[in-house]
């Protein structure tokens, strides 16, 4: 069965819902929440339908600005489809987790949905102009979401820092993308932003040499790439729970995906040339992120840096340019997205009740919030890459890819990179276990028993969200076959463009 224009429908349901929400009277908070949730569930249902439908949705296209070759082209492939599904999941669970927002829920959900529209758009856009269009739509709501509903002490600083980092990255990428557009014209005589047509054009090597790093790094800033990563933990700490989930769960994938889609796939020669250098930066991400995470007492900082570390693995996987590495990167994007969403929702629930995220000030939470405790431990096991959990399924191929790259590219450095990055898992285990022990076990601090800070049970809505996220991770861990082959089809296409490297 096929639904015509299903991709556009998925993309624009959030936008329509967001604008419709703005038309509600501000005081009808309950109606606003339910409308938001309904729209989200419909959208998620469509995402699930598209994902499991054996027939891939048809490419949707029409000419937008024909005179300069801009078209509206939406399509999904094996790499983007899991991310579309992930966005749907994070969107719905984010709405559920935000049920308790009392300050202007109308604007909150509207901005979240405008953000979601941009994210869906980037994952589906097959036209460079369209991709930038959606990319920037996804960036600006973050500013308001963090600045208005964030953590009072840091929110304005963090929101501004995040926005400026992302916008400057995208502006530089835009300049390089325009250069690609004119290069493509020189090669083919046709003006087009259509990425499907740009694929496989042999851009001159000297052009790829300068354009690739600009495009790749411009987007990879959003993936938290070292040394442009530190907006990300700041942003996490300041953001409200649902926005943290979006930020780590989906937005950082946006950066990695766009870097892969525009950088590696359109400029393969540049990729081959630069990857040995980029792989080093990604290794710094993995190791340095993990070490910093270990030193942080603020739970959100810890998870923020762990995201930097895990996203480093994604970039590492991409940078190996091997089938295993790329597949692992694709799986890791999905697995990490769902995992951090779970983490941040747990932390948000604890913070809402305990009013602190400092690990030393917490304790014994498993007695007070057993559901949250179990979910956090589950996420922790994923994060550590325990076999049987999705983290293992995703990270193992990345290490294999790095190892293999040492053979295929005859570069022994990759061998060491594989070993060092695998050892970083030990550090991950250390900080996760430390957090689990001190937050969830031991004695409950006295002041959480009564008074203002008494720990109240979580809402049903929260439980549902946690179950959805945990179930997704569980399914990927025990039965990766519902995703891995799909990602491989996407990876095959990347490898074809790389010339079977």
């Amino acid at each position: 069965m096929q639904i015509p224009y299903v991709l556009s429908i998925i993309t624009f349901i959030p936008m329509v819902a967001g604008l419709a929400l703005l038309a509600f009277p501000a005081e009808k908070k309950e109606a606003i929440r339910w409308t938001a949730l309904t729209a989200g569930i419909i959208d998620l249902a469509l995402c699930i339908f598209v994902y499991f439908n054996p027939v891939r949705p048809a490419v949707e296209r029409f000419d937008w600005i024909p005179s300069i070759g801009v078209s509206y082209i939406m399509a999904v492939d094996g790499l983007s489809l899991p991310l579309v599904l992930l966005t749907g999941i994070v969107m719905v669970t984010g709405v559920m987790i935000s049920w308790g927002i009392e300050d202007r829920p109308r604007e909150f959900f509207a901005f979240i949905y405008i953000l979601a529209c941009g994210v869906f758009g980037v994952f589906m856009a097959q036209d460079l102009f369209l991709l930038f269009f959606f990319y920037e739509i996804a960036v600006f709501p973050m500013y308001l979401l963090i600045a208005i509903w964030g953590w009072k002490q840091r929110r304005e600083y963090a929101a501004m820092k995040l926005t400026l980092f992302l916008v400057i990255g995208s502006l530089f990428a835009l300049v390089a993308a325009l250069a690609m557009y004119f290069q493509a014209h020189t090669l083919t005589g046709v003006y087009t932003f259509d990425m499907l047509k740009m694929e496989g054009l042999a851009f001159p090597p000297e052009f790829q040499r300068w354009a690739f790093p600009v495009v790749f790094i411009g987007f990879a800033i959003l993936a938290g790439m070292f040394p442009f990563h530190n907006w990300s933990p700041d942003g996490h700490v300041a953001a409200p729970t649902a926005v943290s989930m979006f930020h780590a769960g989906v937005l950082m994938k946006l950066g990695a995906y766009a870097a892969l889609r525009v950088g590696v796939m359109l400029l393969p020669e540049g990729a081959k040339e630069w990857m040995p250098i980029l792989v080093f930066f990604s290794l710094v991400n993995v190791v340095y992120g993990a070490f910093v995470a270990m030193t942080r007492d603020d739970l959100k900082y810890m998870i923020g840096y762990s995201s930097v570390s895990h996203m480093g693995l994604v970039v590492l996987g991409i940078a190996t340019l091997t089938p295993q590495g790329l597949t692992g990167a694709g799986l890791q994007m999905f697995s990490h997205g769902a995992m951090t969403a779970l983490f941040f929702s747990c932390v948000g629930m604890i913070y809402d009740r305990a009013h602190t995220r400092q690990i030393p000030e917490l304790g014994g939470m498993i007695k007070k919030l057993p559901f949250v405790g179990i979910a956090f431990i589950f996420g922790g096991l994923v994060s550590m890459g325990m076999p049987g959990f999705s983290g293992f399924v995703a990270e193992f191929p990345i290490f294999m890819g790095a190892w293999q790259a040492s053979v295929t590219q005859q570069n022994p450095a990759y061998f060491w990179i594989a070993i060092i990055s695998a050892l970083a898992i030990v550090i991950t285990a250390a900080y996760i276990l430390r957090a689990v022990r001190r937050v969830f076990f031991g004695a409950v601090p006295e002041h959480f028993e009564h008074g203002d800070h008494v720990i109240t049970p979580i809402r049903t809505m929260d439980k549902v969200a946690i179950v959805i996220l945990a179930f997704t991770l569980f399914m990927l861990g025990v039965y990766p076959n519902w995703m891995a082959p799909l990602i491989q089809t996407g990876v095959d296409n990347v490898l074809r463009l790389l010339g079977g490297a």
Partner: protein
Amino acid sequence: MTDFQTIDLLAILPEIALTALGVLVLVLDVTWRGKIRQQLGVVTAVGLFAIAALTAVFTYPAESQLLYGGMMRHDLLAFVMRLIFLVAAGFTALLSVDVDNLGRRGEYYAVLIAAVIGMNLMAASADLIMLYLALETTSISAYILAGFLFNEERSAEAGMKYFLFGAVTSTVMLFGFSLLFGFAGTTNLYQIGTTIQANSLAITVIAVLVLVGVGFKLAVFPFHFWSPDVYEGAPTPVTAFISTASKAAGFAVLLRVFLIAFDGTNLQSASNWLPLLTSIAVVTTSLGNLVALTQKNIKRLLAYSSIAHAGYALMAFTAIQSAPVQAEAVAAVVYYLVTYVLTNLTAFGVIILVAKNVGSDDVAAFAGLNKRSAGLSLAMLVAFLSLGGIPPLAGFVGKFFIFMALVKANLLWLAIVLAVNSLIALYYYLLVLNVVYNRPVAEGATEIQVSAPYRVALTALCVGVVVFGVIIAPFYDPITRIFDLVK
């Protein structure tokens, strides 16, 4: 002169209609008494929009031609620019109705209409004398408008300052015109273009002299000093008008004079003055944005931001130095002007309402606007994000076309200047939005009432900003032909 033909009438149809409208407003001013005077602005606005529609339908130039013995040119540039001026003035009139001491005075609207007539002729004139007369018509009207609230010190000062600056710069430009006539032996722009010699030092000097006058209209460095004070002091609707339509009119003159009289289509002659324009563009943009960072008054902030925006458009114009990019460069300038005019009018519309309610133009007056009027804060969001170049709003597309022209002309360094400047600008736009959404509402503040004319104007403007940001081709494609048709 040959027989009078239909085309002669069509070419000045908008101006004839505007004159009639001006007379109508003055008659109504004398006859209407009491509450109905509120409708003066609405009548003006409806008239202006009707004339815009009339212009769009009947005066589309099938072919470019010189009329009235070479005084005027009937072409696409004039056509598009006229529409911009008429629409901008229409919105300005709508946004004026509730302003104290301004909204109910017929002569205010009459002067506004006179300014539009001047601008229309600026865009169409093909002769130095005609051009100068049109410029002065516009300028003198604008001085009066800026100082219209003569009981208020700030407004009177703004009018005076504007006048002094304008008088000096226009004299310098007139001197340049006289030299141009001396060298070319003709006052017709098109004949000047073919007779003056490329590469001559004298032409460079004359170009600088003319640029003084044009630069004043555009408010670009180093002729920008008047604009923050005038913007701050003038009645806010007038500020909106000066910062949008008047600036666009300056660009209309810039395009025609520099492309035709100074032979900008010929790369060799263009190289006499292009480096100068490029440096002005870079300095203007960077200076405008950096100074805007420190502004506490929203009108001054927008003044500096509009200085920066003029710099962006000027950057796009400098891309004419690459022959295959010329049409795109001109199109980028015009598209940018359209998006900028719509966006800035939106922003000023909100400012008028907030200032009327709070009694202050400080950025702090916008604290908690979101809780006082969700609609106004949304309009503010649309305007400021569009200024910042965020899709799906017009500002993004405008900036995109500038980037495209610059990259195509291989001016990567200018593209990077533009990128960095966009970032700085986004910073202070976001700070304003932060105040709107995030600062606590002042004690005793009430919900802001938005009367019907304002609601209509702001809704239409916001829709316009989105339309020009999403439905791009029908507007962009025609204006890419401006360059070919202006020659």
